[in-house]
């Protein structure tokens, strides 16, 4: 394999890694946000607690997306 092909495959791998890795967190955060707003509409007096727990849950759901970002950066610049 020539070096250009390797470089091209590397860009492809980084793009696939980031694109596929973003799907899971996106769906998860959407479910969390939707459910949280549903609960807020039902019980507006709970908004403060719900918002705090929503942000924590969002952050945890986002972790795998951050991992795929790191892997993509490593594929592009480190390996």
């Amino acid at each position, binding site marked *: 394999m020539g070096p250009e092909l390797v470089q091209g495959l590397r860009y492809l791998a980084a793009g696939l890694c980031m694109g596929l890795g973003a799907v899971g967190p996106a769906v998860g955060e959407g479910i969390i946000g939707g459910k949280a707003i549903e609960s807020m509409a039902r019980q507006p007096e709970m908004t*403060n*607690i719900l918002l*705090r*727990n929503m*942000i*924590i849950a*969002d*952050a945890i759901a*986002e*972790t795998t997306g*951050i*991992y795929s*970002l*790191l892997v993509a*950066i490593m594929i592009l*610049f480190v390996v």
Partner: protein
Amino acid sequence: MFERVGKDLVLRFPLGPITVALNPATLGASLGISLLLLALALWLRREIPADPEAPPSRRLALLIALVDFVENQILGGTSEKLRRSLLPLIATLFLFILACNLSSILPIPGMVAPTQDLNVTLGLALLVYSLTHVYGMRTKGVFRHLKGYLEPIPVMLPMNLVGDMGRTLSHGFRLFGNILGGAIMGAVTIPVLTDLLVRFLGPMLATLALPVLGTAASLVLNAFFGVFAGTIQALVFTLLAAAYIQGAAD
């Protein structure tokens, strides 16, 4: 002494048996931000009146609002007893990370947000991790705290240790990844926009359209990735820190 690692200039020097590597840009920016926060704190501190019944001035109202926000929003999930002792730590962490994240929108050449450096965020995460042990041992005693690793059954010990490691790593990586991702988006957008404009409008129209569209794109990117994501991530880091310490102290 100075070496290039990637695009960064790194200062390396031996200290006893180990070689220490420092990133001067990160170090300078975080020290500057710390000094700025210190100055802000001293400036606000002078406003506290001797008489607690006196009506608050505008700056004192800002201070009260800040402490109230940290106490009721970030520390709202912690127990009453822990809240008082965690308040200074969590407020400091929040202000430092917020100022670091917001510093990425400053148009200073060579300025990078300190939280864009993994060493800073992982250091903060390790600080929070060691504090979970301090608070756990202080409230439950050394023996009961260490016994918590053998629960629910002693076979779970490796799982609990790996869980601790993954939690701390993801705590640091989350802040780093978010801020670095925003910085990469900011760095990539303008060249891509230039390329697209030249390709579709031709070089003549592109030189006319680029200042307007480039400014608009930078504004939107800085507002979203710098201000919005920076604030949310500072909030997330401190909320999780409070949750971890509360979890260890129960």
